[in-house]
């Protein structure tokens, strides 16, 4: 008898004939499993008080189990969906689980952690609802790994496989270790703000604010009060002090979009601030330090503007320390399939759809278009198509009319359209590389022999 007890102590087993022992054993087993997994798990009762909190939940949230148990889940979890879009509340209301919903939590140190959340209802033995369970996964590492894997094609939110953009990526990583002023030039919709955000995100100041201001959208007086802020009584209607964007940027980044639209008077003020690193709020008497990095962007040709006297030469040299020129979408058509994939994923998430992609016919029309509005135009077309499409594949009927403008041939099949797009891409690359075939082949990522074969095929001279 004694021997039997000792044996059972060494290796506990569930005895199905004794219900309480069986349940205890399973409860222990469940607790052990929950402790060993890397996903955070917590359960709540019907008053939203936490009843269990596993080890991974402690690690991800930075909150100890003893502090979490008995507290309201939103005070512990602090996620972006706690207030208005609580997944657990929805699950308990509709008795349907939520799977992999993305959101973020804020830890005690103020750091935002991206997570994915899944929820389920908890029942007792009689089938009555006794609360809910939420599992969450820290996506920080996955995000970092994905970035590492995609590193060649992705910087911040920029994605590209094209060699022209690779040069931009190299410049972004080169300037991220400095505090130099950067000038981004590119047509509308080419992603100037994304480049600025990518630079900001890759510096050690990424945690500091990124403040964007569109200089072209505001008249001088308003731009001045927005940038520098004002003191109470500085002008009619200034009833209170207001801090300027330059103050709010602190040690982060101030992004001056459409700098080419700034008036000559404002150019003088900006030049002075960039030189002195000081500014004075309107109606103020003291100078404030300006510590943020400045990134300027424009779709205008500043060099030409300097020549005509429309833009101050000294300001141009002050902001043109490092210049990044963004190619148009027409110059990087090889990126279109990847961008489409990215936008479809985005709009699937926003509109709750499950679209797989475009039909071959629709894709040909997209590749054949010259995209004057660049990536923004492409994004709008994908969004429109995602809204209109009722199936899983977006057909040509969901595309806007303007995609079938001049040069559209109703009888074009996929091979003809692909061929003409390929020929155009080769022609453009040849022009960019001064008709040097070795360089062109390198840029297009194909062998020189393949290039010669394609030149012959498309009769390009």
């Amino acid at each position, binding site marked *: 008898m004694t021997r039997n007890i000792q044996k059972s102590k060494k290796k506990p087993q569930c005895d199905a004939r004794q219900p309480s022992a069986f349940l205890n054993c399973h409860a222990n087993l469940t607790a052990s499993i929950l402790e060993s997994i890397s996903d955070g798990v917590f359960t709540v009762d019907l008053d939203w008080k936490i009843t269990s909190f596993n080890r991974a939940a402690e690690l991800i*949230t930075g909150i100890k189990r003893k502090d979490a148990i008995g507290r309201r889940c939103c005070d512990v979890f602090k996620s972006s969906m706690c*207030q208005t879009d609580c997944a657990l509340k929805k699950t308990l209301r509709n008795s349907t689980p939520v799977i992999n919903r993305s959101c973020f939590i804020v830890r*005690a140190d103020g750091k935002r952690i991206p997570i994915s959340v899944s929820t389920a209802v908890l029942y007792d033995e009689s089938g009555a609802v006794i609360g809910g369970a939420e599992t969450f996964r820290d996506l920080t590492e996955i995000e970092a790994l994905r970035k590492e894997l995609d590193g060649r094609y992705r910087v911040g939110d920029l994605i590209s496989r094209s060699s022209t953009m690779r040069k931009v990526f190299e410049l972004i990583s080169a300037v991220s270790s400095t505090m130099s002023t950067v000038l981004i030039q590119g047509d509308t919709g080419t992603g100037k703000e994304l480049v600025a955000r990518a630079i900001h995100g890759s510096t050690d100041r990424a945690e500091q*604010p990124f403040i964007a201001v569109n200089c072209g959208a505001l008249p001088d007086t308003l731009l001045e009060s927005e940038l520098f802020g004002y003191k109470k009584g500085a002008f009619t209607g200034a009833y*209170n*002090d207001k*801090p300027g*964007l330059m103050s709010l940027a*602190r040690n982060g980044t101030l992004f001056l979009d459409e700098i080419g639209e700034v008036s000559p008077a404002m150019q003088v003020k900006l030049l002075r601030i960039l030189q002195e690193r000081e500014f004075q709020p309107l109606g103020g008497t003291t100078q404030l330090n300006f510590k943020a990095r400045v990134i300027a962007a424009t779709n205008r040709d500043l060099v030409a503007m300097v020549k005509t006297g429309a833009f101050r030469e000294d300001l141009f040299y002050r902001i043109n320390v490092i210049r990044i020129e963004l190619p148009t979408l027409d110059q990087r058509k090889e990126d279109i399939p990847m961008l489409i994939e990215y936008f479809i994923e985005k709009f699937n998430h926003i509109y709750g759809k499950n679209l797989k992609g475009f039909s071959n016919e629709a894709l040909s029309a997209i590749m054949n278009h010259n995209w004057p509005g660049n990536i923004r135009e492409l994004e709008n077309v994908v969004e429109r198509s995602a809204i209109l499409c009722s199936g899983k594949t977006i057909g040509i009927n969901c595309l806007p009319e303007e995609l079938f403008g001049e040069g559209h041939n109703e009888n074009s099949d996929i091979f003809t359209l692909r061929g003409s797009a390929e020929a155009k891409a080769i022609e453009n690359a040849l022009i960019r590389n001064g008709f040097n075939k070795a360089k062109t082949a390198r840029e297009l990522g194909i062998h020189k022999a393949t290039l010669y074969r394609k030149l012959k095929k498309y009769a390009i001279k």
Partner: protein
Amino acid sequence: MKIALSIAENRIAPLFDVADDCLLFSFTNGELTPVGSLNLTGICGPVRIFRIAETQADYLICGAISRQYQLMAEAAGLVIIGFLSGETEEVLEAFCLDSEPGMSKFRMPGCSMGRQRRRRFGKKRRSV
């Protein structure tokens, strides 16, 4: 002095970054008076802080708040009393009594009294 409280359903909103509403109170000569409210639905980035700074609030009492917003709020001259939870009235009452032990019971789990709060309780508070 003026106090802004980020709230959700009569409680301090768990996360300031996405909170929809703010209540404004004036605390003068020991008397607390409601002076208005702010709707911040859909407002993010610096404008969220601007809206509060424009009300001339001295203090922002809120739940969790991300580092970016903390920095912007500090730059706008707001003193953040963050990472608190509880009923709006109870938190306000404890704040006006200006007692650190009273406030610490409203701390969110795992969040110690921050730099700003220690500084506030270390000084005699201004009474306008």
